[in-house]
């Protein structure tokens, strides 16, 4: 059996010779740590991202079969993006920088990771109409049509390949920050937020349609949202339903029309309260089910929604920072979830610094011993 067959069979409640060893990538800092420990070469640690050749090479070294978060896609960002430019250098040496999304970020000297959000451009109707709306339109340049026309012949045949179908709210949150998004929702111009969401969604629908019309076939569709945290959603479930439900339905109906019946959605945090909107509008695969840090769970969701709800994820990645016994315990717990059917274990988020290389190898090896 190929990994593609294994994945598709399991998610359709059919037999498979074994579980595929699926993962969700790494924090850059972890790869550097592994390089320093001499586990991997420095070269392999740098420029190693989802779907890159280096990542696939690392899969081979570790024993992974694939990364779920490796879909192919189109450009659904602001087009063209805002110019990335330094607006101001402050007395303490930190820079105020405008990001491609129109966020104003502050970069302190000496910080390597992500900058902190300072301000944002998408504040009112005028900014939306003049700065953002023109960048949220459909342009043919968003899609490499040639690539998709040849896709069925050029794609890897042995692994499941997903099509990234964008986001409804996640990217808007990236353009405005959580605070900015909150203010826009409650803007005095009550239609403004809906107009932003609708404009951005319509463009993505057109992109999706253009891709599917090329005849390219995909094993699953994959959304990215990241709109939840420790205590639940970053927006009320009612407002989420009001602004977003119709867009999921429209996009997912189109996927169904083209034969895609597995539609997964990447959202971390505790997602329970948003699941009804997703599930009732065609999203049927939870990912990555962050059980470790927040105790998000697959089983209660399965009980509630039945076998129509599938899962990829749910393995507490923090076990991979501990010891063999902790990993064994997770594998035992995974066996139970796997026995429910329609579930593929995967670490519940990117592997973070402190994760032990040998334990990851051990997990990948052991998980592949499980038969379905």
């Amino acid at each position, binding site marked *: 059996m190929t990994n593609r067959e294994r994945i598709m069979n399991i998610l359709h409640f059919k037999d498979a010779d074994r579980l595929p060893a699926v993962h969700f990538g790494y924090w850059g*800092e972890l790869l550097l740590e592994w390089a320093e420990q001499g586990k991997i070469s420095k070269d392999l640690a740098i420029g190693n991202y989802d779907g890159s050749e280096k990542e696939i090479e690392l899969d081979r070294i570790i024993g992974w079969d694939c990364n779920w978060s490796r879909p192919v896609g189109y450009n659904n960002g602001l087009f063209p993006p805002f110019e990335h430019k330094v607006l101001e250098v402050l007395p303490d040496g930190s820079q105020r920088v405008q990001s491609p999304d129109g966020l104003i970020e502050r970069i*302190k000297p000496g*910080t390597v*990771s*992500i*900058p*902190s959000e300072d301000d944002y451009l998408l504040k009112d109707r005028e900014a939306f109409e003049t700065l953002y709306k023109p960048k949220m339109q459909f342009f043919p340049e968003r899609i490499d049509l040639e690539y998709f026309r040849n896709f069925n012949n050029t794609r890897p045949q042995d692994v499941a390949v997903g099509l990234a179908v964008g986001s409804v709210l996640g990217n808007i949150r990236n353009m405005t920050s*959580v*605070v900015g*998004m*909150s*203010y826009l*929702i*409650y803007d*005095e111009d009550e239609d403004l937020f809906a107009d932003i969401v609708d404009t951005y969604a319509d463009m993505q629908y057109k992109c999706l349609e253009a891709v599917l019309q090329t005849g390219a076939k995909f094993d699953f569709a994959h959304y990215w949202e990241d709109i939840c*945290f*420790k*205590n*639940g*959603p*970053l*927006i*009320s479930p009612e*407002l989420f339903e009001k602004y977003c439900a119709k867009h999921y339905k429209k996009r997912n109906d189109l996927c169904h029309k083209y034969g895609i019946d597995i539609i997964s959605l990447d959202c971390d945090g505790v997602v329970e*309260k948003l699941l009804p909107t997703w599930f009732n509008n065609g999203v049927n695969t939870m990912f990555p089910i962050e059980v470790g*840090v*927040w105790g998000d769970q697959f089983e209660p969701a399965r009980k509630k929604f039945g076998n129509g709800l599938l899962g990829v994820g749910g393995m507490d990645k*923090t076990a991979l920072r501990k010891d063999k016994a902790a990993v064994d315990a997770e594998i035992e717990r995974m066996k139970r979830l796997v026995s429910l059917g329609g579930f593929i274990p995967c670490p519940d988020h990117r592997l*973070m*610094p*402190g994760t032990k290389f040998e334990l990851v190898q051990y997990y990948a090896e052991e998980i592949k011993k499980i038969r379905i």
Partner: protein
Amino acid sequence: MSIINEISENLQTGKVKAVKELVQTAINDGIDPSTILNDGLLSGMNVIGEKFKNNEVYVPEVLVAARAMNAGVQLLKPLLIEEGVQAKGRVCIGTVQGDLHDIGKNLVKMMMEGKGIEVIDLGTDVSPETFVNTAIEKDCQIICCSALLTTTMDVMGEVVKCAEKAGIRDKVKIMVGGAPVTQEFCDKIGADCYTSDAASAADAAVELCRSAS
């Protein structure tokens, strides 16, 4: 509806402009600034805090309510200083070194201010020494640390140690919170208090300040 109730209601729905106008009218009408603050603004913020705790409202509703509260407080501040109104306590708060997430920290700050506590905001990426030195210099009853990353939460343990070293551990309480933080972790590092959400954090801070005085 009395103007005080109107202030509270409009704050709860995040109406900045209305809150500002109503607070100004109340001031012009000669209503005592502490009454406007306590029975209008802070009581409205408390309602939102409770609802947030019970998942009846979410982050956006709290953020817009807090924005409205701040707009009202700005108008009242000079008058309150004149009146010599005392805060219920003083705390310093920050996100720990290496961590730039500040939304949760800001919510905790707003909720604490909503309870009448004076909050010194140290921002993000705050070193243990800065927490402790601020607590000493500004005579804070509580140090509040927020962390959102599993890789930065350990800095909280260093804040505890740093406070011990500076000899203020018996005078200053240390509160911890943020996405990966748990009660178990709080106990492990020897901090004094953990809560999972901002409204409970404010309640706990009021208690800690009360017992400190």
